[in-house]
C-alpha cells in the first residue's frame, strides 16, 4: 500500500554539482553531455594487472584543483577518490545553491545530507591492509578510519558544511544515488529538514572494478577504441565500461527556496524505491522485471501524474544484455510503445557505468535537461538492438541533441541485490 502524505510541502532542486569522466564542474559537464563527449579512455594500469577490460571513465583533477576543496591537512595521507569526488561535487552544489562554505559558519540544524557510496576509499583500505599484514598497524596513523568507513564521505562533508540535521551515507549498489535523492526528498516532505544535500560517489580504482571484470560483465572488445566502448541499447553492446565520479543535488522545500530567492532547477515530484526480493526471475545480480515495473508505476502514483505525461526517460541502461529487458519494462509500466514511447537516453554511453555514483551523476544530467529543455544525445548506438526496435521506434533514441519541451522526466536506477529506484522530475512552475 502506498501511504500518501497529507501535506503540501513541495521539494525543489536549487543546487547541482558534478565530477564526471567527461566533465568536472557543472559548466564543463553541461557542455560535454550536450555535445555527446565521451569520457572513456584507455588505462595502461588495468592492462598491466591483466584486466580484460582496459578502458574506463576517470575524472581528470589536478593537484591545484584538490586544494580548492580540501585543506593541505585534509590532503595529508589522503587516498580516497570517492571522498574527493564527493566533497567536490557536494561543495559545488552547496555553493551553486547560493550558500557560502566557511569553516566557522553557524551550525545549521535545518540542513542535512545523505551521500551514498559503494565502498569508501578502497585504495586507502588496500594501503591499510598492507601495513597491518606487514605488522605496522601503528603506521596507519589517524587517517585510515575516516577514509575507509562507509560514512567517510558524509563525515567529511558534515564538518566542511556545518550541517546539524541528519548526516548519513546510504548504500544500495548502482541504485545508491537515486535512492539518496529520494531519501532526502522524503525527509523534507515529512517536514524534518528544510534542505538536504544528496548524492553519491564512487572510487576510480581497479580494486572496485576488478570483481566486475571477473564476472565478465565489462566490455573487453573496445580496448583499441575506448570512446566507442560504452554502447547502451546497441546491437553490438558488449558489457558495461566502468566509470567513477560523483554527483550532488541540493533539495529544498519550495518555501525555503522562494524565501531565499534561490534559482530553481526543477521540482522533485515524487518517486519510489523497492526491491524485487530476488524472486520471479530476480537474483542477486538480475532484476525481477515485475518489481521494476511496479517501481516505475508506483513512482507515477507518488508523483500523482499519468504515464502519458512523461516526456523523457533517463534510463539505467548499462550496455549489458539487460538493456532490452529494461526497455520492455518501461513500455509495460508506462503502457506506451512504438512511436508513443517517450524519448530515452543513457548517460552511460558517455561516461560509462559510474556504479554507486551513477544514480547521482545521471540525476544531475536529468535535471539539467529539465532546466534547459534539451535531451542529450546517446552515443554509440547507431546500430540500435533489434529487440529494442521491436518495442520502440528509433527516433525515440536521439543520437543528436534535441531541443525539446520537457515537463516531466522519469529517471530510474537499478542495482545488484535486485533493488530499484525511480524519481519523477518536473519543470518548475509556480502552480
Amino acid at each position, binding site marked *: 500500500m502506498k501511504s500518501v502524505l497529507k501535506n503540501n510541502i513541495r521539494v525543489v532542486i536549487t543546487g547541482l554539482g558534478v565530477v564526471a569522466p567527461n566533465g568536472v564542474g557543472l559548466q564543463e559537464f553541461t557542455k560535454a553531455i550536450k555535445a555527446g563527449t565521451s569520457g572513456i579512455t584507455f588505462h595502461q594500469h588495468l592492462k598491466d594487472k591483466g584486466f580484460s577490460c582496459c578502458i574506463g571513465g576517470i575524472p581528470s583533477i589536478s593537484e591545484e584543483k584538490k586544494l580548492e576543496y580540501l585543506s*593541505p*591537512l585534509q590532503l*595529508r*595521507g589522503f587516498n580516497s577518490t570517492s571522498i574527493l569526488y564527493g566533497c567536490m561535487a557536494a561543495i559545488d552544489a552547496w555553493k551553486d545553491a547560493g550558500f557560502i562554505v566557511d569553516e566557522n559558519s553557524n551550525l545549521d540544524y535545518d540542513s542535512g545530507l545523505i551521500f551514498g557510496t559503494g565502498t569508501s576509499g578502497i585504495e586507502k583500505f588496500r594501503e591499510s591492509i598492507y601495513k597491518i599484514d606487514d605488522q605496522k598497524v*601503528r*603506521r596507519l*596513523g*589517524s*587517517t585510515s578510519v575516516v577514509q575507509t568507513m562507509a560514512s567517510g564521505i558524509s563525515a567529511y562533508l558534515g564538518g566542511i558544511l556545518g550541517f546539524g540535521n541528519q548526516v548519513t551515507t546510504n548504500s544500495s549498489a548502482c541504485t545508491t544515488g537515486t535512492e539518496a535523492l529520494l531519501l532526502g526528498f522524503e525527509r523534507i516532505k515529512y517536514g524534518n529538514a528544510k534542505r538536504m544535500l544528496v548524492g553519491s560517489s564512487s572510487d576510480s580504482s581497479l580494486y572496485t572494478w576488478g570483481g566486475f571484470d571477473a564476472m565478465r560483465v565489462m566490455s573487453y572488445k573496445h580496448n583499441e577504441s575506448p570512446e566507442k566502448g560504452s554502447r547502451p541499447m546497441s546491437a553490438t553492446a558488449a558489457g558495461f565500461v566502468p566509470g567513477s565520479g560523483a554527483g550532488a543535488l541540493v533539495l529544498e522545500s519550495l518555501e525555503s527556496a522562494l524565501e531565499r530567492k534561490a534559482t530553481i532547477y526543477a521540482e522533485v515530484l515524487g518517486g519510489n524505491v523497492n526491491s524485487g526480493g530476488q524472486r520471479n526471475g530476480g537474483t542477486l545480480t538480475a532484476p525481477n522485471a515485475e518489481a521494476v515495473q511496479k517501481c516505475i508505476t508506483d513512482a507515477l502514483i507518488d508523483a500523482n501524474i499519468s504515464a502519458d505525461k512523461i516526456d523523457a526517460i533517463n534510463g539505467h541502461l548499462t550496455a549489458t544484455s539487460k538493456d532490452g529487458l529494461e526497455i520492455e519494462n518501461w513500455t509495460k509500466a508506462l503502457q506506451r510503445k512504438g512511436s508513443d514511447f517517450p524519448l530515452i537516453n543513457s548517460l552511460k554511453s558517455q561516461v560509462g557505468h559510474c556504479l554507486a555514483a551513477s544514480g547521482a551523476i545521471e540525476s544531475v544530467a536529468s535535471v539539467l535537461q529539465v532546466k534547459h529543455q534539451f535531451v542529450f544525445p546517446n552515443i554509440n548506438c547507431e546500430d540500435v538492438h533489434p529487440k529494442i526496435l521491436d518495442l520502440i521506434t528509433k527516433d525515440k533514441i536521439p543520437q543528436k541533441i534535441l531541443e525539446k519541451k520537457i515537463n516531466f522526466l522519469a529517471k530510474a536506477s537499478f542495482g545488484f541485490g535486485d533493488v530499484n529506484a525511480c524519481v519523477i522530475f518536473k519543470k518548475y512552475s509556480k502552480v
Partner: protein
Amino acid sequence: MTKEEIIVKLTTIVKPYVQNEEGFKNMNEETDFIKDLEINSANLVDIILDVEDEFKIEIDNDSMEQMLSVKATVAIIQEKMNA
C-alpha cells in the same frame, strides 16, 4: 643534536596540523600541542609517526602518551636518539 635543532625540526613537523596560527608563531619549549596550537587530538598520532621518520627513532606507547608538549617531546626524542 641540540635541543634548538630538534625544536626547529619539530616546528616543521607540526606546522600542517596547527589550527591556531598565533600559538604557532609563539611556539616555544612550553607550548602545549592541544591547548596552544589547537591540534586535533587525533592528529597527535600522525605527528608521532612524522617524528619517528624524521629522527629515525621508534616511540613506544608509554612515551607516546607523554608527548603532549614541545618540552616533553624534545626530551623523548633526545632519550631515544641517545639510547
